């Protein structure tokens, strides 16, 4: 089983601050996805990164896939209360038949 470890598990910051969430594994993934989940709802896909070293931006969110395709990071600039939620990374293995999810990072942005 390929394991994905996210850090930190919990992050509490003030509105306007920046934050970074990490997703690490000893395994190589063919692609990696990031999701955000709000209480009582299912996760919603934010981005998919495929190429080692790839950087994708989604407004104030920046996603990076490590050169070796074993790790990824999510950086939020000038966080807002609407960014509050559970952030999940998920990796697609070589078999390409399913995703393995990390344990999640709970982010709280206080006004």
């Amino acid at each position, binding site marked *: 089983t390929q394991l994905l470890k996210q850090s930190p598990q919990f992050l509490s910051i003030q509105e306007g601050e920046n934050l970074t969430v990490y997703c690490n594994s000893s395994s190589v993934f063919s692609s990696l996805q990031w999701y955000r989940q709000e209480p009582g709802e299912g996760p919603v896909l934010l981005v998919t990164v495929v190429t080692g070293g790839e950087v994708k931006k989604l407004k104030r969110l920046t996603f990076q896939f490590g050169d070796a395709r074993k790790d990824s990071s999510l950086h939020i600039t000038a966080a807002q209360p609407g960014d509050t939620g559970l952030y999940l990374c998920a990796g*697609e293995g070589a078999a*390409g*038949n399913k995703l393995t999810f990390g344990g999640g990072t709970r982010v709280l942005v206080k006004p």
Partner: protein
Amino acid sequence: DVKVTQSSRYLVKRTGEKVFLECVQDMDHENMFWYRQDPGLGLRLIYFSYDVKMKEKGDIPEGYSVSREKKERFSLILESASTNQTSMYLCASRIGTGYGYTFGSGTRLTVV
């Protein structure tokens, strides 16, 4: 807008009951998945399906079975519910390998 619909948001069942969780997608997706989500354990894959009448075990299939008689519907069955199956159950679908999942809103199941 694409949709994955889970039949119940909240469910309370008694130990030993047979429980059916239904999931329907309207996107003509080939792949469908059932996960459970528990605090501290993240999302764990129970079963998945590539096509009608096909199913594959995930990481924690014990105590569960699935049915996919039609492409749009993927059912999770708890043969004899137990208290350790109390959890949030999430259904997801996707077009195919390399694509993102679309999740349903989840079913919070409590077994008493």
